[in-house]
């Protein structure tokens, strides 16, 4: 039991020995690995693109097409300029949630990471409001105190939802690995908790962000 609680803590991977030591969290190191993997994948997949797609290009185009349609469906045609941000967010969170499959600790298990993601998302929502409607209307929108409350509750719920889900999946997977190590059982559990739940939470996070954006951008 104590062993499990220890693993729930956000660990420090190493310390940079300057200014009295800057601690680098494990989630940060795993994020660097994910960044490297995504950059490598992007280079490999977009290398030698053809007019008529074959093989991996088909999958790439299918995924990007689905993402484009999904977000333009929510944001409408004028949301096109925000697509790259939302797609980056969903790709990163999807990788971060499923990285447990490769034996890493998911960075989204660290509440600091999800808090940062939720903070970025809510700042972006407010920025899209300012860009689409101007700063004056943005300030005026806070005459309604519910909007002020939303600034706190929305990032909090985004952050806690992602964190709680990933932490829950992590706890269950640790218990399964330690308790029922029979062949086949961890596979099924991992398929549900790591792949399905991870991808669903990435989807939900970005879906909610884009819904908030659509609400911020809509004309009265």
């Amino acid at each position: 039991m104590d062993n499990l609680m220890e693993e729930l803590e956000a660990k420090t991977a190493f310390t940079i020995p300057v200014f009295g030591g800057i601690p680098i969290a494990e989630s940060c190191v795993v994020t660097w690995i994910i960044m490297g993997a995504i950059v490598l994948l992007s280079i490999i997949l977009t290398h030698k693109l053809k007019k008529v797609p074959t093989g991996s290009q088909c999958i790439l185009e299918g995924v990007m097409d689905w993402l484009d349609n999904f977000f333009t469906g929510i944001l409408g045609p004028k949301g096109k300029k925000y697509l790259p941000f939302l797609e980056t967010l969903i790709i990163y969170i999807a990788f971060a949630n499923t990285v447990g499959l490769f034996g890493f600790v998911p960075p989204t298990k660290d509440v600091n990471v999800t808090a940062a993601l939720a903070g970025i998302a809510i700042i972006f929502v407010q920025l899209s409001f300012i860009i689409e409607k101007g700063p004056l209307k943005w300030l005026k929108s806070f005459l309604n105190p519910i909007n002020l409350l939303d600034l706190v509750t929305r990032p909090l719920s985004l952050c806690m939802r992602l964190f709680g889900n990933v932490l829950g999946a992590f706890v269950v997977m640790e218990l399964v690995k330690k308790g029922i190590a029979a062949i086949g059982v961890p596979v099924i559990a991992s398929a549900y908790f790591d792949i399905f739940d991870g991808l669903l939470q990435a989807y939900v996070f970005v879906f909610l962000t884009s819904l908030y954006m659509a609400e911020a951008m809509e004309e009265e």
Partner: protein
Amino acid sequence: MGLIALGAAIAVLTGAGAGIGIGIATAKATESIARQPEAKGDIRTALLLGCALAEATAIYGFVIAIMIIGKA
């Protein structure tokens, strides 16, 4: 440890509410898909949103339970 574990268990009871909520939402969604199969996409989107919001309460309970045990 005994009373602390009990507190954590009570916090996790929030899961019951989320389960009931998601159950009702899914029941209604299947019903409406059966009635209007062509609106499947919209219904699925709305269902996912509702489930995500309903599930949040269960997650809060879980996070709080972990916090209670962790502080013990």
